């Protein structure tokens, strides 16, 4: 696979064009916003946390396919999970985005991979200037969870 094909996998383009849980929440919820001032990517997150579990979430944003797909995949990955699980996921995502070439415990072709669709974002590592695009939604999530007093 060329570096470009690895970056723009089918699943990324699908999430870019059909973002999951796009919108806003009413009622009591956490809210956080993030942006990358250098490129203008924006991401906003509404989150409901009940008894330590993320029970609902909605996102808004605009930006490149990587930033928006990363956010959409994140939505799929966090709703229904406990905050503890999500914090573990955030750590794994961070590890995945910082691993250099070579042996990669998160390689999707290895048995027991853990991040599901999110692993499609591994191709971003070959494009260092785009890593901040993939990180945007996750930094916003971190802000939102910080408000939950964790």
């Amino acid at each position, binding site marked *: 696979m*060329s570096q470009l094909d690895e970056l723009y996998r089918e699943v990324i383009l699908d999430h870019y064009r059909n973002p999951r849980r796009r919108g806003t929440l009413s009622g009591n919820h956490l809210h956080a916003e993030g942006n990358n001032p250098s490129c*203008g*990517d924006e991401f906003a997150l509404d989150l409901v946390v009940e008894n330590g579990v993320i029970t609902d979430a909605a996102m808004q944003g605009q930006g490149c*396919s990587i930033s928006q797909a990363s956010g959409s995949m994140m939505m799929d990955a966090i709703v229904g999970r406990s905050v503890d699980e999500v914090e573990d996921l955030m750590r794994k995502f961070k590890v995945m985005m910082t691993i250099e070439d070579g042996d990669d415990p998160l390689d999707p072709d290895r048995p027991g991979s853990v991040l599901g669709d999110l692993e499609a974002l591994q191709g971003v590592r070959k*494009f260092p200037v785009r890593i901040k695009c993939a990180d945007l939604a996750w930094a916003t999530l971190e802000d939102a969870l910080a408000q939950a007093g964790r």
Partner: protein
Amino acid sequence: MSELGHLRADFPILRREINGAPLVYLDSAATTQKPQPVLDAMDEYYANHNANVHRGAHTLAAEATERYEDARSRIASFVDTASAQIAFTRGATAAINVIAYGWGLNHLREGDRIVVSVSEHHANLVPWQMISRYTGAELIYLELDDEFIIDTSNLEAVIDDRVRIVAFGGMSNVTGALGPVDALVDAAHSVGAITVLDGAQLVPHAPVSADDLGVDYMVFSAHKMLGPTGIGALWGKPERLEELEPLEGGGEMINIVERYHSTWAPVPHKFEAGTPPIAEAIGFGAAVDYLGRVGMEAVAAHEREITAYALERLSEVPDLTIYGPKDVTKRGGAVSFSLGDIHPHDLATIVDQDGVAIRAGHHCARPLMQYLQVPATARASFYLYNLREEVDVLVGALMKARKVFGLG
């Protein structure tokens, strides 16, 4: 086609490969590449003449001062003005800040108005927002016409006798549209307002005679015209430079320093506090020498041709939208576009794989992005070293981007 292709040999970086392909550098509106004579001039200064300027009686100090002042006079000649009307600054942004603070803080108050256009670079917007906040003067916008040019059809409605400053760009770094200098100067002067021309994208690309433009102040930047980063120029009419207070105090900008007050050095040195970027000034001088040898008419003609070719080729790409004038007599060589639903950052990444450097983003012009109702654009910008073949490479890479995004 005008024959400037031979100049490419003067630019070492143009021999580079990027991702296995020859570099196609289409980001000169962000910064230009540097020819060998500019690099040599700075090296030669450091190797043989390095000393501080305007201080000390030793031979090296005299040589450095002579070269620094000689650069100023070459830059002055390049824009057809007197040396005393060119002050060195850190860049065009710094020069606008000198005007905004040095003039604005001392002349503006509540009830006054500052007029800018919606197509300004943040460098010619944010300082005026700050001065507006400090003085209570109101910031007013000029909108664009359907060719993306600052709309002058109803100027008297905007530029009335409350307006003290009209600040605008000579050429948009996004749309490439040329600023309607004459109309804005006439409108401003008819109500006694001063004019500030952001020449960062104009001076590098067209013959400019500062004294003939009619504006009160003009700024430009070395690195956008083959020179080094970290230096630019503030030009003003003599009386405007006299009445402009310096923004920075320190060494070199003074006449007499007492315990509790000081007097300033004459123009332009009162604007040059501290040790200036000496090598950069000398590099800036070498850059205008280089442009002068090529001839600015030839530079402008070359850019018109390549821009016309780019507009034609880009319009062959399905789903591609260009944001800027179609008429090359109304524009320069910065061409902004979008392609289907492919975000400009994705476009920039994809074409970079073919060695093509374009800019993606808001181009330091967010109000313009909002006006155009796009979050960002992609931009290819051309200079004297670009070739038609490079436009072809760009178009090929854009077709590849369509495939990657499944647009056929």
